[in-house]
């Protein structure tokens, strides 16, 4: 059984599909990683259009209060072994938008972050490093953010309620937007 789980973890690590929900300026750094210079598809990494098909959601830039709602909706729609990467300094501590009225400084108060990439912006080399790191973590079974989210749901939901002032409503797991 353990061997079987290890095989599945290996398969998951070599077939990471990412959700192209790119906030802020980091979306610009994805095409170089995708095209022939770095070619992320050789690791089995592909862009996907809907959260239903995705394994990892990249938050590639500042997180406004309005965007965070959509990120939470998308994250909760993804099927279960799922990961979240905070990409760039804005989702880590606010970055250059630390005193903006619109942005939320720390993403990890509201969603579990598996991997951080520092930089403003991280270049395509950093992106590839991030992907190989994520592959290693998934293969070893270390990326467990989704389990943490399920376990500490009360904490995350409380934080979300404090931020928005009300509960985000879902109808049978589907988007309420």
């Amino acid at each position, binding site marked *: 059984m353990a061997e079987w789980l290890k095989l599945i973890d290996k398969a998951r690590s070599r077939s990471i599909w990412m959700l192209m929900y790119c906030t802020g300026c980091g979306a610009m750094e994805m095409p170089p990683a995708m095209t022939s210079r770095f070619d992320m598809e050789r690791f089995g990494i592909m862009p996907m259009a809907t959260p239903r098909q995705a394994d990892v959601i990249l938050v590639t830039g500042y997180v406004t*209060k*309005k965007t965070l*709602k959509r990120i939470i909706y998308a994250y909760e729609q993804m099927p279960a072994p799922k990961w979240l990467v905070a990409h760039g300094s804005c989702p*880590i*501590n*606010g970055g250059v938008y*630390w*005193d*903006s*009225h*619109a*942005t*939320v*400084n*720390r993403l990890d*108060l509201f969603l579990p972050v598996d991997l951080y990439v520092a930089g403003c912006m991280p270049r395509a080399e950093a992106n590839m490093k991030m992907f190989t790191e994520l592959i290693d973590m998934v293969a070893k079974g270390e990326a467990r953010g989704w389990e943490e989210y399920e376990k500490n749901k009360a904490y995350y939901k409380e*934080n979300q309620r*404090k*931020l*928005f*002032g009300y509960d985000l409503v879902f109808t049978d797991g589907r988007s309420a937007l």
Partner: protein
Amino acid sequence: MRVEEVVKAIKDKFGLEVENPYPRRLRVKIPVDGKSDEERRQVLRDLLQYAKEIEFQHMSFITCVDFIKEGRFELNYGLWSYTIPTMLVVKYDLDRENPKHITVVDIWKPAKIWEQEVHEMFGVEFEGNPRSFEPYVLEDWDSIPPLRKDFDPVQYLKEHPMQGAGYDPLPYANLVEKNLEQPTVQETGGDEGANS
């Protein structure tokens, strides 16, 4: 109609001076001159209507500038002409304490969304444009409009600790205030030395 003819036509019809500070830009300010709000609004609407009739096809923007020391908002209506590639900016002053204004959406349709934005960011109320009272990009906003000069983002983040968490704002706030002060210019003998 050429640029000079536009300047002359507006001067003849409304008696307003049109500046041409640099190529492709015309500026006209609607002065206060002791007139009532209704009269000035009528001048603004007539001017925008006339500009549409002569040469200008496109409303590019409505922006607002907050002159907090003078106690006024300045609305800028930007009209672009494709035939004489020139931007006409109409400036209109508003009382900052009571920013009530009238919509121009019946003349220029794009004003619908520009007025919505100005209302959200500066709190200017446009009569006759019900959409301008709806939220534009900010959801659940609970403070004074954020682009007013008296809005303090650091104070706002202190009141909303979940949003502002991550940075301790205080040391950075001190830094920002220090930078705001005018640096004292030191008189040196350099210029004199150069002259002599």
